[in-house]
C-alpha cells in the first residue's frame, strides 16, 4: 500500500497535466476553426466597397453590374446610393424595405455607418459622388462600433490570455485534487484491509465513504476467513484431543495385558510353550504401548500443541542417559549397545527440549529393536562438528533397500499425507524423530550403516 499511494498520486498528476493540455489544444483548435469559418462572412465592408465600385453612372441613371447585383440578391442584401450633393437616395435595389428612408441628414449617415437602419446592419462603401450603403438582413451581423478598449488592455492581451489559461489549469488541478484525495481517502483503508487479509488477522474497515460497498465485502471476506480458520483450528484440536482421549482409554486395559503377560512369561510353573506365548503377548503389548505414545506425540507435534521448552543441553550426556536406560531394561541382552562417541568428547551443546530430544533418540534405538526381531547390535554416537551436533544411531541388522531409504528421506508420512495411501506404512517412530529434529532447527538423514544395517542421523545446530 505504501508503495501504491505515490504511484496513484503520480498517475493523477499525469492525468491532470494531460487533460489541461488537451483542453488548451482543443480550445485553440476550435477557435481557429470558428475564426476560419467566420472570415468569408466577415467581409461585409469589402462587399460594400465592391458594390460601390460596381455602381456605374449611365445615361439612364445608376446601374449595378449584373454579377454583383445577383450576389447581393442571393444574400438578401439591399443597397442604396446616397448622393453627396442632395443627401437623397438616387439609386436603390429593387427590394428595398419600406422602413428605409430616402433622405439622410449627416447625423443619419453617421448613425448608419456605425449602426443599423431599422435593425438592418448597414455597411458603407465610398464613391466619388456619394455613399453606397448595403443593408444586410436583420440579425445577420452584430456591429460593435460602440466599445473602445484601453490601449494597455489590448497591449497586455497575450499576457492576459496566458493568465486566464493558468487560472483555468489551476482550477482543473483543484478539482482533481479534491476528487482524488477523497477517493484516496476511501481507498486507503480498503487497500490496507486487502493487504491485511492474507496475514489471517481479523480485518474491519469502516463501512462508509465512496467505496463503502467494497469495505462491506472485505469485512465479510475477513469474517468468512476467520470462521474458517476457527473451524480448522477447532478440527485440529478436536483431532488431537480425540487421539489423546483414545490413547488414554487404551492405557489402563493395556497395563493389565502387559502386566499379566509379563507375570505369565516369568512363571516357571508353566510349560515352555505357554511362557513363549506369554512372551509374544508381552512384546506385542509393548509395541502397542509405544505406538500409543508415538501417536499422541506425533499428532501434538503436527498441530503444534506440544509446547517446546528449549534450554542449553549437553547432547552427549543426554544421549548417553537414553542408551543407559535402554541397556538397563534390555534384560535378555538381545540388543547389545555400543557407545561409539569419541572418548575426548564430553560435551556438545544444543538448544533443545530435553524430553523431546530424549524421546527422539529413544525412538531411533527402539526402531532398530523393532525391525530386528532376531536381535542386533545398536551403535550410538555423538559427533561434534563446526556448526552441528550429529546424533547417529546405527545397527548391524537387516537394513533397508535403497528405494526404501529414498522413500524414508523424502516421502511424507501416511499420517500427514493428504492422498490415499495404500503402500507400505512405516511406523511413527521415525516420523516423530523428523518432527522433533525440525522443531529444533535440524534435520534427519536415513543412510546405510557401515555396520551393515540402518543408520539414522539427526543433525542439530550446535551451540558454541
Amino acid at each position, binding site marked *: 500500500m505504501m508503495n501504491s499511494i505515490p504511484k496513484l498520486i503520480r498517475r493523477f498528476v499525469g492525468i491532470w497535466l494531460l487533460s489541461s493540455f488537451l483542453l488548451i489544444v482543443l480550445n485553440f483548435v476550435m477557435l481557429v476553426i470558428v475564426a476560419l469559418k467566420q472570415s468569408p462572412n466577415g467581409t461585409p465592408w469589402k462587399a460594400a466597397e465592391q458594390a460601390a465600385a460596381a455602381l456605374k453612372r449611365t445615361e439612364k441613371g445608376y446601374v449595378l453590374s449584373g454579377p454583383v447585383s445577383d450576389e447581393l440578391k442571393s444574400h438578401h442584401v439591399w443597397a442604396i446610393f446616397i448622393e453627396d450633393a442632395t443627401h437623397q437616395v438616387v439609386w436603390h435595389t429593387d427590394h428595398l424595405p419600406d422602413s428605409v428612408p430616402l433622405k439622410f441628414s449627416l447625423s443619419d449617415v453617421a448613425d448608419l455607418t456605425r449602426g443599423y437602419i431599422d435593425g438592418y446592419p448597414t455597411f458603407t462603401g465610398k464613391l466619388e459622388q456619394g455613399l453606397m450603403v448595403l443593408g444586410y438582413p436583420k440579425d445577420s451581423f452584430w456591429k460593435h462600433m460602440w466599445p473602445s478598449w484601453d490601449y494597455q488592455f489590448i497591449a497586455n492581451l497575450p499576457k492576459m490570455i496566458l493568465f486566464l489559461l493558468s487560472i483555468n489549469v489551476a482550477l482543473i488541478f483543484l478539482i482533481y485534487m479534491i476528487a482524488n484525495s477523497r477517493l484516496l481517502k476511501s481507498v486507503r483503508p480498503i487497500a490496507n484491509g486487502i493487504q491485511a487479509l492474507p496475514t489471517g488477522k481479523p480485518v474491519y474497515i469502516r463501512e462508509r465513504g465512496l467505496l463503502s460497498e467494497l469495505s462491506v465485502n472485505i469485512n465479510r471476506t475477513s469474517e468468512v476467513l476467520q470462521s474458517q480458520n476457527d473451524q480448522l483450528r477447532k478440527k485440529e484440536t478436536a483431532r488431537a484431543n480425540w487421539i489423546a482421549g483414545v490413547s488414554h482409554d487404551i*492405557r489402563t486395559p493395556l497395563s493389565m495385558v502387559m502386566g499379566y503377560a*509379563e507375570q505369565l512369561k516369568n512363571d516357571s510353573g508353566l510349560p515352555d510353550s505357554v511362557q513363549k506365548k506369554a512372551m509374544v503377548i508381552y512384546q506385542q503389548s509393548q509395541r502397542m*504401548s509405544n505406538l500409543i505414545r508415538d501417536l499422541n506425540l506425533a499428532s501434538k507435534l503436527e498441530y503444534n500443541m506440544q509446547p517446546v521448552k528449549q534450554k542449553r543441553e549437553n547432547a552427549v550426556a543426554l544421549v*548417553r542417559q537414553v542408551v543407559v536406560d535402554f*541397556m538397563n531394561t534390555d534384560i535378555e541382552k538381545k540388543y547389545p549397545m555400543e*557407545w561409539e562417541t569419541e572418548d575426548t568428547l*564430553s560435551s556438545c551443546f544444543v538448544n533443545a527440549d530435553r524430553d523431546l530430544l530424549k524421546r527422539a533418540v529413544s525412538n531411533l534405538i527402539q526402531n532398530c529393536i523393532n525391525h530386528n526381531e532376531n536381535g542386533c547390535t545398536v551403535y550410538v554416537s555423538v559427533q561434534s562438528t563446526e556448526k552441528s551436533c550429529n546424533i547417529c544411531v546405527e545397527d548391524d541388522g537387516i537394513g533397508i533397500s535403497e528405494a526404501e531409504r529414498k522413500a524414508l528421506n523424502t516421502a511424507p508420512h501416511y499420517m500427514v499425507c493428504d492422498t490415499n495411501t495404500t503402500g507400505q506404512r512405516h511406523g511413527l517412530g521415525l516420523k516423530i524423530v523428523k518432527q522433533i529434529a525440525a522443531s529444533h532447527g535440524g534435520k534427519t538423514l536415513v543412510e546405510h550403516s557401515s555396520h551393515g544395517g540402518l543408520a539414522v542421523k539427526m543433525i542439530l545446530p550446535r551451540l558454541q
Partner: protein
Amino acid sequence: MASEYLKTKRILLVDDEPELLDMVGSILTEGGFERIKTAGSVKEAIAAAEEFYPELAILDVMLPDGSGFSLMKELRDSGDYPILFLTARGEEEDKFKGFGLGADDYMVKPFSPKELLYRIMAILRRCYKEEDSLVKLCHSEIDFARAEVVKGGKSIPLTAKEHALLLALYRNAGRIVSIDALCEAAWGENPFGYENSLMAHIRRIREKIEQNPSRPVSLLTVKGLGYKLMVEGD
C-alpha cells in the same frame, strides 16, 4: 541385596479399576511384598490410611470422587510417606516435573511390572534406610551409615565423594549409572569436565572394595557410558 526389610513395608494401592488393583496387587505379591491394602476411591483411601498406616502409597491420578493430587495432600496431612503416581495421561508428566507437587515418582500406564517393582524398591530404599545398613558386595561390605568399607575384617574409611558415588551406584544396584549422573551425584548440577576426576575416584573406590582392582567384579565399567555396582544376594 540387603533389602528384604523393605519388602515388609505397608503399601496402599488406590485405583478406580478393580482389575488394575488386582494386577498391581499380584505384581507386588510376586515381588515379595506382603502388606498390601487397596482402595477404589478417595473416600476409601482416606479411611484405609487411618487404620493401615501405609509406608508407601501408589495412587491413580483420576479417581471417581476426586483427583489423586488432592488425595495426596490429604494423605500427607496424616503421615509423611512416599507417594508414587500411576497416570494414564502422558501429558501429566509435565505436572509431575514442572510443579514439584511433592510426588516421589510417577509412572505412565502402561508400565512394565519389572519397572514398577524397581521404582518401588528405589523409593523405599531412599526413604527407609536400614538402621545397620550393610551392603554386601562380592569381596567386601559397605557401611553407608558409618561411611566405611569392610574388607577382610578391616575397616577402610570412605571420603565424601566416594560415599556419594557409591550411594548413587547402590540406589541403582545392578543397573548402569551414566557418567553424567555420577558426576552430578558427586559435583552437583551441570557437571562438565569431571570425567577424569570421576575415573580417579572410581579407581580409588575399587582399591577399597575389590580384591583385584584391575579385574573388578563389583564395580563394573560400561565403556564410554557409565558404571554398574553388583550387589550380592539380590
